């Protein structure tokens, strides 16, 4: 595919991700830490985030299924997840974690289930979009193009 077309797609996707609140300025901070000596930094952090998040989501699902429910354990996992989503700039996931944490504090099992579904949804939405963005970057670079930082 034409490099210019790829770059246009990349730009539009990036703008949409920020506009729709999937990513916040922390992601921009991470992009700024990339340079020719560390070209894979954002991709590496993203991969760590994806793997870690899926592990935590599995643990959360298991814990909410427990009898009785260990809300303290759930709170600890949500705290972790909120932290990592904040560190990568996954804004909507972070917000979802805040809601989940509140339900946890109230020991509201049903509320927790709903909040967890929401967090899962937000996570997979941002994961898919971020993977697409990183793939576009790879393609652009493979075609000898460059990736402009977002305004």
């Amino acid at each position, binding site marked *: 595919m034409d490099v210019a077309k790829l770059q246009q797609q990349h730009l539009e996707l990036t703008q949409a991700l920020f506009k729709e609140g999937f990513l916040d300025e922390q992601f921009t901070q991470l992009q700024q830490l990339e340079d020719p000596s560390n070209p894979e930094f954002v991709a590496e*952090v993203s991969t760590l985030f994806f793997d870690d998040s899926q592990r935590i989501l599995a643990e959360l699902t298991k814990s909410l299924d427990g009898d009785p429910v260990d809300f303290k354990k759930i709170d600890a996992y949500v705290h972790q997840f909120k932290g*990592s989503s904040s*560190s990568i700039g996954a804004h909507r996931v972070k917000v979802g974690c805040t809601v989940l944490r509140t339900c946890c504090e109230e020991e509201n099992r049903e509320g927790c289930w709903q909040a967890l579904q929401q967090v899962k949804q937000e996570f997979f939405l941002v994961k898919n979009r971020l993977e697409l963005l990183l793939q576009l970057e790879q393609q652009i670079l493979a075609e000898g193009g460059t990736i402009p930082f977002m*305004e």
Partner: protein
Amino acid sequence: MARTNISREIDAKKQLPSRAPVTPDIHVLAVDDSNIDRKVIERLLKTSSYKVTSVDSALRALEILGIEEGRSPSTANSFQVNMIITDYSMPDLTGYDLLKRIKENAGLKDIPVVIMSSENVPTRIKRCLEDGAKDFIIKPVQLEDVKRLSQHFSSTIKKSSGVVCSKRKQEIEDAQSRKIASRCPHVHELRVIA
């Protein structure tokens, strides 16, 4: 998936973080149980030209510092750590516990310790600063937070804990205000009630 021939267009109008080396010989020990946060703090520190060792627990940090149980004081700091930056909330030993252990050790008490936390709890910040932490960073950690660290190696910092505490608290509040304002343009003022 290695990238080759990388060059990135940099928007000249965008203010880039300074990559000027601070002091290449400064060795920072970073302590955080989150692998994502460890990766980010490592990169932030290396970008500022610090040498970095990162560990995932306070216990590992104590091993590196040579003050685990049973070791003689003469082995303290054989890795020549010049600064410790640690997460507050960690399982087993917290960042605060680590701070206390370091300050109780004659060979290590002068090493500056900086604490990071995702939670903005004024009483927690106050306690850490009063008990010897040089600074407190609210997560997510950004380049401007790491830039602030260089002052802890300056010889002009006043030794009086009272002056340092209130100055540091103001800097922490200002940094937090800037972070929040940049994300929420409608928030004009943030007050951290100490």
